[in-house]
């Protein structure tokens, strides 16, 4: 369980990090390392060089302006977990971070790492799909913004180029009468989700859905945005009947495979049940409950 040898650099600035990443074939970014280091120990990943960005200044922050909640990519999960701003205004994110891995891993694991890693079992991809988030990436030519809907390409595969570093995640600031929730079934603390559902909704004054975001964790090669269910709900009232119909569509959008955590049928059924519950909770929160 000793990783293969690799070159290692720990630059102090982002431009040095980008240069180091581009200057070596098969270089990889080391963020929190809570997925990458175990993968290297199993020799499922064998980067020839690690560019450790833990010493790069200015990548750890949680700021809010009128349009966005901006989180630096090296912000530790525990910082998000303890943020009063996140707890108060971003319940979907607060729910997710509290069940993301375990408290000790959260001290080291990072927001950017959980997204850039591209593992469908990670919790943030579905959360960010539900929020309609954006990420920023910096490469040799400067910064670009990537909508989260075009970020996840395949298993451990993202829109990031090999010489780009994810620097920031931007979540839209909540409008009035909006709310969210994340529901995850895990066999034990620290395990990947058997399945999990992220829901973010905005209601109008009458309780009709103005916008709906639904993301599904660990039931496909990437996190899945349940667009048919989202579209179905838009403009409809937040009745239980509508929520149940949307949940059926979400279950149909899932593509689980059978593994130690359960059969395909079980997981699909779980997606349906958790979509109902996540939407109910999101609606309740949107109404101020």
């Amino acid at each position, binding site marked *: 369980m000793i990783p293969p*040898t*690799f*070159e290692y650099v720990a630059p102090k600035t982002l431009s040095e990090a980008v240069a180091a990443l581009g200057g070596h074939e098969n270089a990889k970014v080391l963020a929190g390392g809570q997925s990458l*280091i175990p993968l290297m120990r199993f020799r499922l990943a064998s980067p020839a060089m690690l560019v450790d960005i833990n010493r790069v200044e200015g990548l750890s922050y949680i700021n809010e302006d009128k349009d966005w909640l901006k989180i630096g990519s090296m912000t530790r999960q525990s910082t998000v977990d303890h943020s009063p701003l996140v707890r108060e205004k971003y319940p979907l994110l607060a729910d997710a971070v509290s069940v993301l891995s375990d408290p000790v891993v959260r001290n080291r694991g990072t927001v950017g790492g959980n997204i850039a890693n591209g593992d469908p079992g990670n919790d943030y991809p579905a959360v960010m799909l539900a929020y309609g988030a954006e990420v920023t990436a910096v490469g040799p030519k400067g910064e670009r913004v990537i909508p989260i809907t075009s970020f996840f390409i395949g298993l451990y595969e993202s829109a990031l180029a090999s010489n780009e570093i994810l620097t920031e995640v931007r979540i839209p600031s909540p409008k009035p009468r909006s709310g969210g929730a994340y529901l995850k079934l895990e066999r034990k603390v620290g395990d990947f989700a058997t399945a999990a559902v992220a829901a973010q909704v905005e209601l109008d004054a009458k309780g009709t859905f103005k916008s709906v975001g639904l993301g599904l964790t660990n039931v496909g090669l990437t996190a899945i945005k349940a667009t048919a269910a989202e579209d179905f709900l838009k403009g409809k009232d937040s009745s239980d009947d509508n929520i149940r119909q949307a949940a059926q569509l979400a279950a149909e959008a899932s593509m689980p495979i059978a593994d130690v955590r359960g059969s395909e049928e079980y997981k699909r059924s779980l997606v349906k049940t958790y979509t109902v519950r996540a939407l109910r909770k999101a609606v309740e929160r949107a109404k101020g409950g």
Partner: protein
Amino acid sequence: MSMHHIQVTINGKSHEADVESRLLLVYLLRENLNMTGTHIGCDTTSCGACTILFNGTPVKSCAVFAVQADEAEIRTVEGLVQDGKLSAIQEGFHEKHGLQCGYCTPGMMMTTTALLAENPHPTEDEIRHGISGNLCRCTGYMNIVKAVQYAADKMAEKVEA
């Protein structure tokens, strides 16, 4: 091979070492420095037996490279004893039988050290949540929770006294 010179402060004492980039922090402690109080359990960030304090924060030392600890302050279970006396946390695990085989205990106590520093009067729920990244296969956790409560009470007494 990629070698790096590091300086790391462990339990208040400065150490220097030349390490290969792939050397994990837990192996630096156990094999290079012969501090075997920190245990290796699952080796893959699941069990928490290797938990140490990294600049005051509990982390699993099987998922950090030694080279990343350059200039860091590390605290291990060997650093809990003060003036030859068990710390309140160690005393709690002893008094309340918070261990059977003892394998998880060093990691459990390091997580507890940080937990009580941040929250000196945790509820049972907060204790159970706080130690949920550390697995114990013997105790069923009951006595570990009691040990943490004992330590919290003992530390509060000291503050009042």
